[in-house]
């Protein structure tokens, strides 16, 4: 009985150790992986630096932009979607962080003006082409009339000279 006791303890210790290692490895697997730079940049490329104008967040070299990219990484790790992150940035820093402005207020002009300008241009072009088509084609210059007695006399004279008369 006393000889078996150390063996039992060893087996118990082994079972506990195996159980602990399985639990640790499972908890490690359960943690979401840290989002890669590519995943962060994929979201950052849809946003603009709020401080330095017209610089996309994924290529912005400033310290502030590095902080914002880290923020995106944290949000991605927390399971936020791209749209949720973008909305968070809009709430914090305003519409100007978006690559495409939302169509409200005066922003709608951005979407309406280009097609309107193209339509006006097409209209002007059509009007010009129509006016060109309507313009009278200048008549070709009339050939010298053979009825003219001077011309007729000259032609006869030339023919006579050609014949060697």
């Amino acid at each position, binding site marked *: 009985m006393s000889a078996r006791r150390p063996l039992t303890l060893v087996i118990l210790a082994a079972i506990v150790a195996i159980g602990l290692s399985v639990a640790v490895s499972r908890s490690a697997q359960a943690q979401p992986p840290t989002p890669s730079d590519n995943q962060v940049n994929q979201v950052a490329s849809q946003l603009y630096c*709020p*401080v330095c104008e017209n610089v996309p967040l994924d290529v912005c070299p*400033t*310290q*502030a932009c590095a*902080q*914002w990219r*880290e*923020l995106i990484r944290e949000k991605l790790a927390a399971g936020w979607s791209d749209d949720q992150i973008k909305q968070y940035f*809009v*709430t*914090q*820093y*305003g519409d*100007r962080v978006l690559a495409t402005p939302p169509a409200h207020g*005066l922003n709608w*002009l951005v979407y309406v*003006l280009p097609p*309107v300008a193209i339509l*006006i241009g097409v*209209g002007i072009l059509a009007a010009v082409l129509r006016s060109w088509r309507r313009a009278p084609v200048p008549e070709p210059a009339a050939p010298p009339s053979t009825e003219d007695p001077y011309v007729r006399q000259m032609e006869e004279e030339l023919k006579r000279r050609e014949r060697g008369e």
Partner: protein
Amino acid sequence: MVDETAIEPTQAGESNSEEFQGGRRFSWGTGAIWLLLLAFLLLLFFGLRRTQQGPVQPGAPAPQFSLTTFDGQDLDTTHMRGKVILVNFWASWCVPCEQEAAELQQAYENYKDKGVVFIGVNYVDTEPEARDYMARFDITYPNGPDLGTRISQAYRIRGVPETYIMGANGNLVEAKIGPYASLAEIQASLDRALGSTTE
């Protein structure tokens, strides 16, 4: 015998008159195009004028705003009439802001019992870094994020740091673009603002 030279000018005159009348004929399409162009130019003009305006100038009514601090406290400057308010725009990534951070905190401690309210407006920043910055400089006066950059747009700031001191009557007494050089400079500004209040 017909005098052809006498007829020609009349025909030409009629022809020109027709073209002239045709040119003056009102067309809804042309009118709409001119109207659109005019509206676009007006928008452009007002937009450019706004960007060229620069920060709010002393003497003008200071933009009123509300802000939720990092501690969750709601502040509204409209409820602070009768007090001098110092509004400091800053960011954790702003190196010049660090030059005046400790002096601003010191000024706050010197003036908080003299009817002066200090408000820090954290401009386009991330909260953890902003909190780190405040901890680094032991800043205890109320600070909060400028959500949607609404406050900085109202003050038309060009960068950080910028500090605006509002008098008790709600008008702007002083605008400091860039960092304060010393505690004495901040205190002199606050004394002027308090002086203008008691006058």
